């Protein structure tokens, strides 16, 4: 029954001794700690590490999925032409850095294509 109390007393004694040893740290150690602290705080002033590839993976993934959906949904019905399923190489090309701008403007290009089709139909 006395064990937990004794354990507490033991821990209290250990803590007191430990705190005493912390208070007795010499000036050299405190100086090193001070320098370490400032070195660590310097990290805050530097810009956080960024990985462009990681940053763009989610956005690119969503854009690609949308592109696939757009192609599949719009494919043969509107255009009236033989529909070719996109192949893997298409997506590789689209995922290249140069294509990212195009992906960002996807809605615009989609609208442009529709507008051109409407003009062609009207003319025809």
């Amino acid at each position: 029954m006395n064990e937990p109390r004794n354990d507490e007393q033991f821990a209290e004694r250990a803590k007191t001794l430990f705190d005493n040893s912390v208070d007795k740290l010499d000036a050299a150690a405190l100086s090193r700690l001070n320098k370490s602290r400032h070195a660590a705080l310097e990290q805050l002033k530097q810009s956080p590490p960024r990985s462009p590839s990681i940053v763009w993976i989610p956005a690119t993934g969503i854009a690609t999925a949308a592109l696939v959906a757009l192609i599949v949904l719009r494919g043969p019905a509107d255009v009236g032409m033989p529909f070719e399923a996109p192949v893997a190489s298409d997506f590789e090309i689209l995922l290249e850095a140069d294509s990212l701008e195009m992906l960002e403007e996807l809605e615009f290009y989609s609208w442009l294509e529709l507008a051109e089709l409407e003009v062609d139909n009207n003319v025809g």
Partner: protein
Amino acid sequence: MNAAASAFAVSWIREPMTGAVTLQRERQLNRFFAEVERRALRIAEISVRDRDEALDLVQEAMIKLAHKYAGKPADEWTPLFYRILQNGVRDWHRRQKVRNRVMVWFDKSTKDDEYYDVTAHAQDPAGRSPDEELQTAEAMQRLEVAIGELPARQREAFMLRTFEGLDVAGTATAMGCSQGSVKTHYSRAVHTLREQLGDHWQ
């Protein structure tokens, strides 16, 4: 769609801190380090039995915390900091094992390096300290040696709970284990230490 993708991409990026926020964070972090650093040093020193190595480990932990976790809420810093520090201590012990194996291979005994001379590490009383202070220093030395002989996980649990004052949940976060494991390690550590140091130590 485009807007959604952009928003997702932006949320993925760690938001850059403005000047005012950075300054505030810097002050908070400075206070945190100042509060925790000396205890952290002693805990690391007891773990690796070398002050210079311990100082390096503490600095490494500070830099990693500032670099990776400064954006976390301040109340999460303590367990995160000790988790980084404990990982550093474990890596240090692994490197030491490899180093010792290599030294043995080249027939250069490291027994002298491994031997921990309590007297040599004791604070020099030089006849100036009162008896009570000497007894306290000796008691701490005995405690340090006993803690150093504990299995690593018991040592971590005991020091984080007793010396740093982390609760069970915080200790579990720092050690990367369950709260049940923390309780078990801590209980065994106290039992072993009490048995080893004897009642008269208290």
